[in-house]
């Protein structure tokens, strides 16, 4: 082969772009339901090296703010992370900064593994509340896939939460609440509010080669023990054993479309070579930014493509207590939550609701880096006051779809060969009202718990984990990008299988729903091919 010549691979039936939650679940389900299909996944990053993660190193706190930060932009600024093939995202005009991981497992590598489901009402916001849009199917249509996804991830939690339809018993007991979680639970109880221990995709007992969590703390820099579920540990080993090929360090440049039909994928491999992979079906699962970027870069036209970007607006209220609490111990996002205010109550002045989640304390350096004032005697007094003595309540609101919140391409070509990507996102007035309402309720809880000082963080920019809505499902090609099976209206043999599909997003973490949705879409593809 001459230098510069394109490498051509033999055709596959299904080529998946991205090995995160959606891509992995799709691949595994396809391999299980249709083992004769030749299925390939192209992943731009690499496998995690669990022997060399920050939690095992003396400078782990510094690494968490640099090459192991949750923001790809911060990682790039710190010189990059060899395992996550990051690309810069112009987020100057966005109230929230996108967080993700671009390696095998996608953002399940650095997620908190908080694993709630959406509520049934989240699937029909237009019908129930006159806002947003209904999903093309119901919670109960997705429920069997939630159960399958739970089984794959191994959920620690407690069945019986009346905020949800009855869920199957969780396979493992809940994570310990610790002093902080128990104090929050007591305060919720005194107020007569709903609370429940979180569902977490984290082992609380050892299963096979994956040990029980030992509460080390920095989940968001990768889990060294494998106690925290991520798709490199759950779906991928099984998918690969079933015959799915996973090629790493392959940056997809374009989905090639001829006459309204995708014929394959052009990508750049780890050696920088141009490769051609023919495929009968292309599945894109690169998250709400990466998926829109690739589809737009491939020249796919759809009025709603890239629009309706949703994050879940987030704020924090932090309470400082006289007594010592746990400090930065245990899975970062997983203690207890309250859905007392999750469902719509028109008297609050906004539609839809909020999720309150009691989260663990940040590491010492992270806390020191976020003080105001940032240095001097007062900064050190504040740190002494709060370290080991604070409780943070995350207030997360439902984001509703808005056309002006969007992903677009820039005119520059980035180092990965693709056009640059830019996001625009402005917090809506309703979201602001919801966050303000939620902060007031969080403050009520912290006071009931005995906080002696309370600090509000009205907007938390570095919470942009949930990248949703930019290739939404629906029946009208003018207002949606795909049909109910994730197939593009414009190019039906291209399927989207990630959070981009969400028409609305509820007010809680989407991972569980992304996995369930991808399983459902894989079944739809198998059904269509039968």
């Amino acid at each position, binding site marked *: 082969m001459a230098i510069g010549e394109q490498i051509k691979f033999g055709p596959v039936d299904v080529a998946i772009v991205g090995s995160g939650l959606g891509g992995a679940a799709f691949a595994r389900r396809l391999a299980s339901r249709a083992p004769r299909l030749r299925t390939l996944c192209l992943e731009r990053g690499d496998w995690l090296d669990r022997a060399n993660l920050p*939690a095992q190193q003396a400078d782990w706190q510094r690494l968490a703010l640099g090459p192991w930060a949750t923001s790809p932009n911060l990682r790039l600024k710190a010189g990059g992370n060899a395992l996550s093939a990051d690309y810069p995202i112009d987020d100057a005009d966005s109230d929230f900064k996108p967080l993700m991981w671009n390696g095998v497992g996608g953002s399940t590598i650095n997620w908190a593994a908080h694993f709630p489901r959406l*509520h049934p009402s989240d699937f029909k916001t237009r019908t129930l509340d006159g806002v947003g849009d209904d999903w093309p199917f119901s919670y109960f249509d997705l429920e069997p896939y939630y159960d399958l996804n739970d089984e794959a991830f191994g959920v620690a939690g407690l069945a019986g939460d*009346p905020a949800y339809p009855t869920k199957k018993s969780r396979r493992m007991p809940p994570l310990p*609440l610790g002093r902080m979680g*128990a104090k929050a639970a007591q305060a919720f109880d005194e107020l007569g509010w*709903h609370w429940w221990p979180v569902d977490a995709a984290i082992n609380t007992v050892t299963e096979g080669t994956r040990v029980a969590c030992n509460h080390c703390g920095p989940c968001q820099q990768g889990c060294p023990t494998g106690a925290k579920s991520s798709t490199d540990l759950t779906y991928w080993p099984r998918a690969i054993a079933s015959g799915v090929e996973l090629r790493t360090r392959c940056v997809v440049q374009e989905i090639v479309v001829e006459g309204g039909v995708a014929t394959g994928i052009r990508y750049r491999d780890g050696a920088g070579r141009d490769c051609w992979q023919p495929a009968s079906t292309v599945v894109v699962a690169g998250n709400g930014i990466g998926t829109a970027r690739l589809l737009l870069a491939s020249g796919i036209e759809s009025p709603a493509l890239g629009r309706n970007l949703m994050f879940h607006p987030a704020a924090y209220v932090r309470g400082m207590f006289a007594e010592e609490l746990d400090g930065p111990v*245990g899975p970062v996002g997983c203690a207890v939550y309250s859905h007392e205010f999750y469902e719509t109550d028109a008297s609050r002045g906004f539609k839809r609701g909020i999720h309150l989640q009691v989260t663990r304390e940040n590491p010492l350096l992270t806390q020191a880096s976020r003080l105001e004032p940032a240095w001097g005697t007062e900064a050190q007094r504040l740190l002494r006051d709060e370290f080991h003595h604070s409780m943070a309540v995350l207030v997360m609101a439902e984001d509703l779809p808005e056309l002006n919140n969007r992903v677009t391409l820039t005119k520059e070509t980035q180092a990965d060969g693709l056009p640059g990507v830019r996001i625009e996102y402005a917090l809506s007035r309703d979201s602001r009202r919801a966050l303000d309402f939620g902060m007031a309720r969080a403050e009520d809880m912290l006071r009931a718990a005995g906080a002696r000082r309370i600090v509000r963080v009205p907007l938390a920019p570095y919470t942009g984990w949930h990248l949703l809505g930019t290739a939404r499902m629906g029946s009208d090609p003018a207002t949606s990008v795909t049909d109910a099976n994730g197939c593009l209206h414009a190019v039906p043999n291209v399927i989207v299988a990630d959070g981009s599909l969400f028409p609305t997003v509820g007010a809680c973490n989407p991972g569980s729903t992304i996995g369930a949705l991808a399983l459902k879409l894989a079944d739809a593809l198998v059904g269509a091919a039968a």
Partner: protein
Amino acid sequence: MSRVLLLAILDTMLPGDAGQPPLPAASEAGLELETLERLAEPAVAALADHDGFLMASPADRVAQLRIVELNVPDAFKSLLAEALATYYEAPPVVAVLGWRTAPPQPHGHDVAPNDDATWRSLEKVKARGQLWRA
């Protein structure tokens, strides 16, 4: 740049306290100074009067450093970030704040098991019946 001046700047940023146990000032925490010395160069250059800074009271040093922060914000931010990282990773500082100096793994941490009274309070939540809408 003199080490004395660098340490005076760092002590202004991180003066320590007289709590129990006392938090050491930056100059007493045994910090590795090489990187800080390099990052401090723009701040030192922006400091109008080096001798005056060294002779100044703690309050005056804060005022002078605030002017530096305004004049060279990016350089000051880089210096502060490195100073915080170096200081709050230093074992004497971490120990004073009641934290473990060893990395989180392989030992992890102990978290108290959930107590029965907490779980019993969930019965009240359950007794409210269905909270979801469809």
